[in-house]
């Protein structure tokens, strides 16, 4: 089990490090690269949880489609580095202190709380992350949300095309 434990700590450290790098970058392209690396670390974490289909989908959808779109937009807009205003740095220290406080509370809950005891797992629990089981549940129990989300994607495509197209001049 040491490989699984080591893998968790490596991917967790990578995820936290790339997240902190992301929020401190001045220009957009290094930030996008940090986020792509973060998504790969999260995909590794999903694999340690035996969620195989989601690990593959994370790379395909997030790193492979959403981040490509974001990088296109960054290149299209061709902005310079972000310049901070004075008022901005005051807000920033307050926000950072508040959230460090929240993380401290969370750490306190983690250290003082009890270990979760292993309740009995339902049958077929070892199939939970696999493609076949997820596909079966998606097409039987969750069929209505599946069809509804296709409608959502259609409206998103129509909406983004309408927003981004140029107005015709005459």
């Amino acid at each position, binding site marked *: 089990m040491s490989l699984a434990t080591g893998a968790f700590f490596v991917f967790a450290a990578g995820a936290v490090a790339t997240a902190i790098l992301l929020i401190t970058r001045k220009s957009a392209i290094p930030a996008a690269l940090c986020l792509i690396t973060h998504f790969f670390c999260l995909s590794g974490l999903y694999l340690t949880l035996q969620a195989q289909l989601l690990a593959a989908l994370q790379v395909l959808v997030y790193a492979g489609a959403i981040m490509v779109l974001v990088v296109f937009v960054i290149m299209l807009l061709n902005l310079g580095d972000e310049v901070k205003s004075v008022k901005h740095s005051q807000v920033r220290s307050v926000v950072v202190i508040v959230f460090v406080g929240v993380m401290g509370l*969370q*750490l306190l809950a983690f250290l003082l709380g009890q270990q979760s005891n292993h309740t009995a797992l339902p049958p077929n629990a070892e199939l*939970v992350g696999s493609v076949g089981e997820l596909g079966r549940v998606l097409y039987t129990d969750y069929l209505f949300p599946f069809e509804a989300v296709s409608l959502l994607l259609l409206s998103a495509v129509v909406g983004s095309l309408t927003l981004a197209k140029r107005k015709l001049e005459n």
Partner: protein
Amino acid sequence: MFQSIPLEYYLLLSGTLFCIGAVGVLTRRNAILMFMCIELMLNAVNLTLVAFSSYLGDTAGQIFVFFTMTVAAAEAAVGLAIILALFRNKQTVYVDEVNLMRW
């Protein structure tokens, strides 16, 4: 199936990532960078859902993540189209310069 990492570690990690994303959203001026920090927060929640699904042996958590990823993809397309339209009209993506409707 026996998990060698306790569930609490995953929850702590995901809470930390969520807080880092929240700090990022509140302290950036660039709309595209704010959007990327929102994606960070969404992924932290996805990690919580997958961790619980794996530890309780219930597929529902992973199905939820499936739909959250779909919604995030749709939101990415529409949000970036809005940013493009904003840039075309105001020539800026800094959110504190877009204050025409402020009182």
